[in-house]
């Protein structure tokens, strides 16, 4: 009898107590018992990570993000301060911690099994109102692809899009993490960007603003990956975004960047995934997309072509005379009525091409506002009079979907013969893509090689030697056509080993090579290019400087998994170290798999009055 009575009495007592406020000491004891200060989810909410010097530290630098003065370094102190703040009585003139930190509050309620009704402030009405306003249906990652010929981005960008239950895609809410860089430009911009000199902030804006910026202005296609998150997951993510409002973190280009923070938002939504643990030390937006795909988080893929993509696709699907006339109409050389003949659907497509192209010209400031307005409205009037809808939308090129791309860290092992010596070689390249890496998923003609280092061990040598260290190797080869005439350029800098005349011994030379030129599409898959290069060398003799000038011509030819890159270059070095260097050769690769390829180089070259032939073969694996 008594045994049955005790629980009943206890339950009755609990019912009486339920109106009573919680005591900080009780909750703290329970939190200690559950070791919440070391709980993965708590650490995720605080952005705490182990540092290289062994201590834990939050990646967030803003003191406003912490309730405890020691919160940056001490998740336990922050937990205690949060428990205290959540239990504080509501004061009329002070914003309660629950309003400010609804994600931490929700975490405590769930983990400590609290009854919100017994809290001084049961929920954050500020957040609830915003949440109702958003009416979230789903969340997606938007990935504007890399485009080398704008300052905006080489690696691409990622932002979060909250799709509403009622609104169109473009009226979704975009949540963007970006650095506020102010008016800086050039070198200051570069140095501060890499060294965390700018504050990073989350900002919220209608998605159309980002679409206007990326797909229209930067000519970048945008891929949208809808995430397989439940409504509860999305709510948890938004609770965390709410806590990050107005919070500053130093923006580090290579690691604490948009892609990194995005993984934190997903981790806040799904604490079990721990995606930011899986991220490589260098987070590139493309890696984020791949991590999400591999975690099975991607439901559906959508694609928004940029203006440039639309121009090219429309032109390709109509007769050449129509495309040429559309161009002349956009340039104001013919009236829009010239397109209108017996076939309204074809005329509409032609005028739509003219409209796309004129808009692209305006965005690139190739047309003055005064000329643009009447021409644009004039073409639109002719288009409206046709009264027919646009031709079917341009479909996404699935072979270049960013999630199809190889991973960005490359390891290569191989061997070959250079001059009269055989060698074995090893290469490590942390990021990101060169012209001969497997092409799917990457923009054709764009290369960013970063910090690649190759060592070789030549026969008869006592130890291996540095063959090449490529600090930066960039290519931006954008094909020219009748519509667009972008410049093509390249930059290479690093240290290379070269054979030198008078015995053919080798020396290490520092180089900075800059080339500008043009590029055209090949009639089949690929492109060819010609550049004029200025090549500065610092060599280990006295005098030590040499400046070379000369042309380079090459091509990138694609045939299924096979890519070939024949190159010929000639460089006349002037100044204190005169020599005529040239090389002719072909490099190539054969992709066995997304993350595995064979690569080879064949070259005949003259370096500093020494002729040599090199043949090398490698296996490249991508991680």
């Amino acid at each position, binding site marked *: 009898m008594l045994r049955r009575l005790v629980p009943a009495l206890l339950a009755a007592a609990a019912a009486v107590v339920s109106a009573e406020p919680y005591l900080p000491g009780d909750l703290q004891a329970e939190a200690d018992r559950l070791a919440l200060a070391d709980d993965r989810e708590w650490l995720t909410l605080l952005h705490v990570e182990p540092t290289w010097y062994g201590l834990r530290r939050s990646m967030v630098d803003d003191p406003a993000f912490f309730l405890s003065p020691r919160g940056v370094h001490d998740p336990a102190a922050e937990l205690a301060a949060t428990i205290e703040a959540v239990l504080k009585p509501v004061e009329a003139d002070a914003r309660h911690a629950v309003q400010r930190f609804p994600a931490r509050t929700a975490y405590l309620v769930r983990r400590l099994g609290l009854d919100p009704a017994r809290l001084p402030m049961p929920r954050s009405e500020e957040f609830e109102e915003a949440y109702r306003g958003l009416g979230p249906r789903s969340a997606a990652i938007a990935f504007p692809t890399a485009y080398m010929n704008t300052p905006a981005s080489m690696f*691409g960008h990622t932002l979060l899009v909250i799709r509403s239950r009622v609104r169109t895609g473009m009226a979704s809410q975009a949540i963007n993490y*970006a650095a506020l860089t102010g008016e800086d430009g050039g070198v200051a911009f570069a140095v501060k960007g890499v060294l965390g000199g700018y504050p990073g902030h989350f900002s919220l804006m209608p998605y159309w603003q980002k679409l206007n910026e990326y797909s229209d202005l930067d000519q970048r296609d945008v891929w949208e990956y809808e995430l397989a998150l439940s409504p509860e997951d999305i709510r948890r993510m938004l609770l965390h975004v709410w806590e990050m409002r107005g919070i500053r973190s130093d923006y580090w280009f290579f690691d604490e960047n948009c892609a990194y923070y995005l993984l934190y938002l997903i981790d806040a939504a799904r604490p079990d995934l721990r995606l930011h643990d899986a991220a490589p030390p260098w987070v590139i937006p493309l890696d984020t997309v791949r991590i999400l795909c591999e975690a099975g988080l991607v439901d559906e893929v959508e694609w928004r072509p940029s203006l440039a993509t639309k121009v090219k696709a429309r032109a390709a699907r109509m007769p050449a005379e129509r495309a040429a006339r559309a161009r002349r109409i956009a340039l104001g050389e013919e009236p829009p009525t010239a397109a209108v003949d017996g076939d309204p659907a074809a005329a509409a497509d032609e005028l739509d091409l003219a409209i796309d192209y004129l808009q692209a010209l305006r965005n690139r400031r190739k047309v003055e506002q005064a000329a643009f307005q*009447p021409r644009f409205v004039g073409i639109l009037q002719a288009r409206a009079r046709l009264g027919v809808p646009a031709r079917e939308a341009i479909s996404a090129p699935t072979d270049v979907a960013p999630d199809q791309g190889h991973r960005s860290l490359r390891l290569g092992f191989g061997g070959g013969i250079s001059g009269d010596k055989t060698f074995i070689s090893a290469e490590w390249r942390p990021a990101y893509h060169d012209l001969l890496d497997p092409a799917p998923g990457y923009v054709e003609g764009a290369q960013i090689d970063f910090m690649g280092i190759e060592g070789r061990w030549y026969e008869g040598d006592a130890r291996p030697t540095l063959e090449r260290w490529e600090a930066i190797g960039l290519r931006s080869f954008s094909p020219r056509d009748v519509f667009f005439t972008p410049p093509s350029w390249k930059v290479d800098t690093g240290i290379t080993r070269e054979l030198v005349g008078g015995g053919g011994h080798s020396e290490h030379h520092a180089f900075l090579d800059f080339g500008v030129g043009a590029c055209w599409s090949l009639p089949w898959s690929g492109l060819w290019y010609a550049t004029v290069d200025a090549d500065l060398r610092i060599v280990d003799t006295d005098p030590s400087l040499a400046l070379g000038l000369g042309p380079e011509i090459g091509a990138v030819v694609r045939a299924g998994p096979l890519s070939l890159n024949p190159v010929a270059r000639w460089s006349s070095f002037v100044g204190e170290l005169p020599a005529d260097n040239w090389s002719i050769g072909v490099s190539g690769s054969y992709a066995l798999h997304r993350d595995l390829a064979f690569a080879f180089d064949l070259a005949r070259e003259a370096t500093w009055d020494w002729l040599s032939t090199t043949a090398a073969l490698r296996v490249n694996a991508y991680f």
Partner: protein
Amino acid sequence: MKKFLLPVAALVAAAGLHAADDLKQNVGIGIGTMIFEGQSGLLSQICAATTNGCFGNQTFAITTGTLGARPWTGIVSNGEVQTFVRENMDQLAREIAAGQGESIDTLAELIALPADQRAEFAKSLQAKFDTIYDSPTVTSTEVVEHIAQIVKA
């Protein structure tokens, strides 16, 4: 076109808003996208390109403000119609000319036009293109006004 009764109030109210608007908010065709001042020139592109992975557009981040500075509104408001048309002037114009598109759908949603009337709405805007864009220098507030008149008519 009496069937568009419901959104009339929203549009008319939105059209009336411009009296209080700044001049700078009254944007013509071809200007909206010029807000984005990009760095130009090859050298600055390269400098920027090596650092600018995900910086986004800094000008924009400042003018839009951070989450803390801007109220998180998701509710349809008349101001939103003005903002939407202003920020999507060129896109909206070309979709009205083509008689379909996401901008027209978004406008229809912002004025709470029932889904089954949207195709008709797009068609009638296309038919009245010359009235809406009655001059090459037409401004966004005039566009909202003209659309409101068409819906009322």
